[in-house]
């Protein structure tokens, strides 16, 4: 394991400040969507597991 997290950055860019802000906004939006998708997936698997365990009498 590296002692420092790798950094990812865009260099040699001649984007304007507005373009940089737009790029960040879009990336943030994508990250939130991914978070929601992964969270939803975990939740649905968890709920299915609870239902299946309950149906099979392996829970209270």
């Amino acid at each position: 394991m590296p002692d420092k997290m790798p950094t990812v950055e865009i260099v040699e860019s001649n984007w304007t400040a507005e373009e940089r802000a737009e790029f960040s906004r879009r990336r943030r939006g994508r990250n939130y969507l991914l978070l929601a998708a992964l969270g939803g997936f975990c939740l649905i698997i968890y709920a299915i597991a609870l239902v299946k365990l309950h149906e099979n009498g392996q829970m209270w």
Partner: protein
Amino acid sequence: MNTPAIKLRGLGPSAQRAADYIDRRASGATAPTGFQGAAPLGLGATATDWLTLLKPRVLTLVVFTGAIGLILAPVHMNPVITLAAILCITVAAGAAGAINMWYDRDIDAIMRRTATRPIPAGRISAPGALAFGVILAILSVLVMAIATNYTAATLLAISIGFYVFIYTMWLKRSTPQNIVIGGAAGAFPPVIGWAAATGSVSALPILLFAIIFFWTPPHFWALSLYASGDYERAGVPMLPVVKGQRHTRVAIMVYTLIMVPVTLAPFVLGLTGRFYGVSALLLGSLFTAYSWRVLHDAQDATGASLTKNAPAKACFKYSILYLFLLFGACAVDRLV
């Protein structure tokens, strides 16, 4: 707009190769393989672009018909499992749509109606869209198998495969009957919903499958009558492009006349009640009237509309409402 060079620090060579690829695309250089007509990737995709890959408009109909299959099934299901089954059907249909957009990115770029989609517009890379579709397809089938049963999961996998391999990759570009046979892909959701609840398939879901199967040609041909220029430019052999508009108008009428008796079959066979039977008759009569107007639209010698295809546009809009109302009537009939 000038595009940046991307330099990754602290990551491996494969990540840098990916960045170099994006860089080449952004600078307008041709991609190593595949489609070469996409715009630069620019500022990247928005979250909405990724959701657009799932074809959300089509999904509403898929969710609805899938849910009807679950409602009609004579088995009580746990609400969590019901929700999971509907979600799996939705995600699978969306995944098939994403793979379809990946495969059709060359013709999408040519057609006005689809040129702004995320891949031809250059906001999402083609490999990214393919990976997105494949991952969602696999996950949806696996979760369906875990949550419900293997019959439903197998049907779900078949429906994805049918849409991607049979319709998108084979039929769509090779025959004017593409919609007729390919329509089967869109007819799966109620069967999958029923199978998720019961673990088997019986007469009613097969009839629901047949209804969507025979509904698809008049629905799509009505659209293709006023979008045939797009299809012609892209070289897609839709019926109006290959056989002409007059032939297409007749085909819409013929398939409507086949579809209406099929919609009455569940009532005639005693699988639904009187409410559905009356609804199917009234809605079907109206569909026939819309098709009749398409057939007798004012036309020139080639069959091209002189009314800017107003009857075809009305028929297309009604066909969507028709399916919602017909399946809704079926559900109401069962629940009340």
